[in-house]
């Protein structure tokens, strides 16, 4: 649909992610490294799930559409579980790496806290996941045509972009909650993260009824966002301080000399 749609959808899908990267991650090389490593871990999980998918598709009956649909659902579930497994694996790796970094560095405190790592790794997962979701759609949106000649919905590009934005932010929130739950050994939190991921993925089977998939996804995103905010140390009181510009007094009052 021409360049206007291409840029519009790119900004919708990657706008929040890019601004987060620019303002919070780009300045600190350590965060950049962990972001890319997180993206790589997501990519590994994708490789594994695609291997399994490929093999099962080859041995399945290609003509039976119900089998193919069942295979699709299986693929979705498998991929979600693998992504979360790799997130756990990344958490374990980061814990080990942090001890190692502490031994190497001359300072006494850790250069990057586990909460920041959670945020960065979640965002890394989100970036890569968003890229794989939407890049090929964006590539086709540059051409002169729009979807619809075979009767599909016209809002395909727009809803894909919004879905991608939600997924990127969701990955970030899931990362924060996941790491926090692992730190505090709260296994039920872990289960909620995994099941919400499964839920969001399975909601997409509603497409092309985009309302049915987008609205619940955004509701889940807001809920997860609140939960992640609380896990990261936010509270309603802090929010009120910020919004009413009393934050400077707050900092001064709570400043503890070393």
């Amino acid at each position, binding site marked *: 649909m021409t360049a206007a749609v291409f840029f519009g959808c790119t900004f919708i899908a990657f706008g929040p992610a890019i601004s987060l990267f620019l303002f919070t991650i780009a300045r600190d090389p350590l965060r950049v490294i962990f972001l890319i490593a997180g993206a790589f871990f997501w990519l590994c999980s994708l490789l594994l799930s695609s291997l399994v998918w490929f093999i099962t598709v080859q041995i399945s009956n290609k003509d039976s559409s119900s089998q193919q649909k069942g295979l699709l659902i299986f693929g*979705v579930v498998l991929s979600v579980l693998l992504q979360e497994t790799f997130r756990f694996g990344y958490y374990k790796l980061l814990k080990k790496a942090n001890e190692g970094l502490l031994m190497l560095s001359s300072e006494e405190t850790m250069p990057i806290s586990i909460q920041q790592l959670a945020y960065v790794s979640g965002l890394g997962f989100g970036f890569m996941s968003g890229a794989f979701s939407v890049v090929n759609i964006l590539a*086709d949106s540059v*051409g002169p045509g729009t979807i619809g000649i075979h009767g*599909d919905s016209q809002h395909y590009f727009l809803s894909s972009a919004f879905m991608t934005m939600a997924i990127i932010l969701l990955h970030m929130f899931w990362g924060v909650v996941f790491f926090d739950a692992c730190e505090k050994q709260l296994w039920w939190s872990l289960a909620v993260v995994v099941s919400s991921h499964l839920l969001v993925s399975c909601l997409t089977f509603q497409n092309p009824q985009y309302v049915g998939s987008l609205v619940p996804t955004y509701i889940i995103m807001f809920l997860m966002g609140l939960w992640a905010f609380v896990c990261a140390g936010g509270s309603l009181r802090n929010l009120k301080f910020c919004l009413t510009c009393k934050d400077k007094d707050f900092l001064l009052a709570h400043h503890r000399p070393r």
Partner: protein
Amino acid sequence: MKDNCICVLMVCCVCNTPLHGLDFFVFLCFSDVNSNSVAQKIYVEVNNTVPCVRLLNATHQIGCQSSISGDTGVIHVLESEADLEWPLTKGPNPPYMILLESHLFTRSIMMKIKKESSRIAGVTVVVPNTSPSEFSPHTTCPNENTGVYSDTYGPHLAHCNTTVWNPLGNGLSYEEFDFPVFSLKEDKQCYYDHNRVVNGSAPQYPLCAMQLFSHMFAVTDTATCMRRNDVINFSINPEMVCDPLGDFNVWGSIRPYNRSQLGHRDNESVVMAAARLDSRAFFWDVSTGAEGSISGFVTLLAAAHALRDVTQVAPPTHNILFAFFQGEAFDYIGSSRMVYDMQNGKFVIDLDNVHSLLEIGQVKRLVDNFQSSATGANFSLVEPGVSQPLPPSSLQRFLRAQNIPGIVLADHRAAFNNKYYESYYDNADNLNLRYPPNMTAEEQLEFLTDTAMALTEVATVVARALYKQAGGDGTQVDNIKADSKTVTQMLFGFLVQANNSWFQALIPPELKDMLSDPPDFYVGVASSSPAKAKPLTRLVQFLLANLTGTATNLTQDQCQKPDDLPDESVQMYSYLWVQGTVPHNGTEKGPFCVRASVRLSQALSPAFDLGEYASRNYSTWTESRWKFIKARIFLVASRDLEMLTLGVGVAVLFSSLLVTYFISTKADVLFSSAREPASAAY
């Protein structure tokens, strides 16, 4: 081929199935070719597109051109000439892609479209099932600048001042259009679903649109494009922009000529018989020329066949040379080349050796109302007065060089009788080639049509005339009869189905793929070696060889190298290994070696050898090159929706930038609850 595959996962290429919205985590692979299912949801590729391409000569460029990234337009089906108002002025969604029925493909409509071409992206013409009553896209005066009549020689006869040969010609083939014109199969479903104009109100978006790609590299004229061709010798990535038109002439003679002896032959006087092979149409590569050229050369082939036996029994005084010229539609490429070769001693004979020339033009209607019972000739030959000029014919090129006695045999006194001269409709129907229903292809091949009988009569007359002209024995003349079975098989092969058993028997087994349908008679771009000549030319070569040559007992190896044998000489004859018929029931005839004095001579305009790309004397036609030619149909959305999407995107970006800035500056405060326990530890 470029491969855009970002298959990071080497093993996978599970393509994205947006139906289930798995888009955001399923791995995808997008490549140029059709595995991209998003592109499949947007575009419908149109198959079997026939474009109009750009041709250039010394002074002009003709044909059609699209922009390099294709021309997109909202489809509008034209119902009548008055309906042109909608796409040209009134329609609110320019540019438009006009879809024409074939009966609306007229000069006046195309000229109107050409004038307002800023609002028109292109034109597509629906492939017709039936022929209109008349249609000729050629000019009214074919080859007017390269014939024998000019401002210095017979000016009152030049430029059709006396006789307009093709009065039905509308000259569309020689116009220049700066938008693409394609010929496609009918597909109006998308238009009816989305683009119908109801009561004068504009249709709603999304609208059905088509995009045509036919970008031509060459511009201006032949001299420019040949100069640009030469420049590429110095560049790393050579890409030619145009190629000269041309092919090979087929010639054969009763008595062979030693091909190593070129130039004038003493005491040699040859009667030449000529016909043209090629034709053209508005669209590229779809011409047939049934009446325009096929009737002529089939008659000549049949006449050559009729003369085979009698010239062995009672050889005539003069030799007879049969010449089939290619490229005659484009300012006499083949005949001008042969004349040039004769003048410069590059051909086996000289212009002084030519005794006379008999040319067979359009002869379809020479025998109207054929009576199958009659044995004698059913037509009489009439000579028009000297005030009548010669029709466009290869004889004119010979006369330009030297005064040679000549005859052009045609079925029209003044203007052509052919209502579809050089057009797509000059096909089997135009020749009234009718077969009874429910016949298999093999039965149709053998069936004697009326047209075949008629042309056989003409061939008999031509053969007898040639024999007498060559000084043959008068008593033998009545024995000369053309074979109507050969004629009908030739007509079937050239006009209906080339891949038939008779044609297959005449060509080498390895060239079977040459017989593709439908047969095509456009001269095409010149190639350097005879092995790469056009299928039509090679077919005529093998036909002439089989019809005038003799079958020998040579084996296949001997056929490749006949010089090892004492009696055979590759200088005098050409030896062709052909498939032969495979009769049922036992007697395997099998492949055999044909010895015939049939050769191919290059038909490339002398202008290209001489480097005179702006020549006025010779043909300078070239065909542009292009990268790809395709068409596709899709829906387009309204501009407002696109701008809205962009606006939403920019708004999302800016608001997220603001919010993130706010959060990152206040991060200490916002996330301080996590640190409090740490700082509260004393």
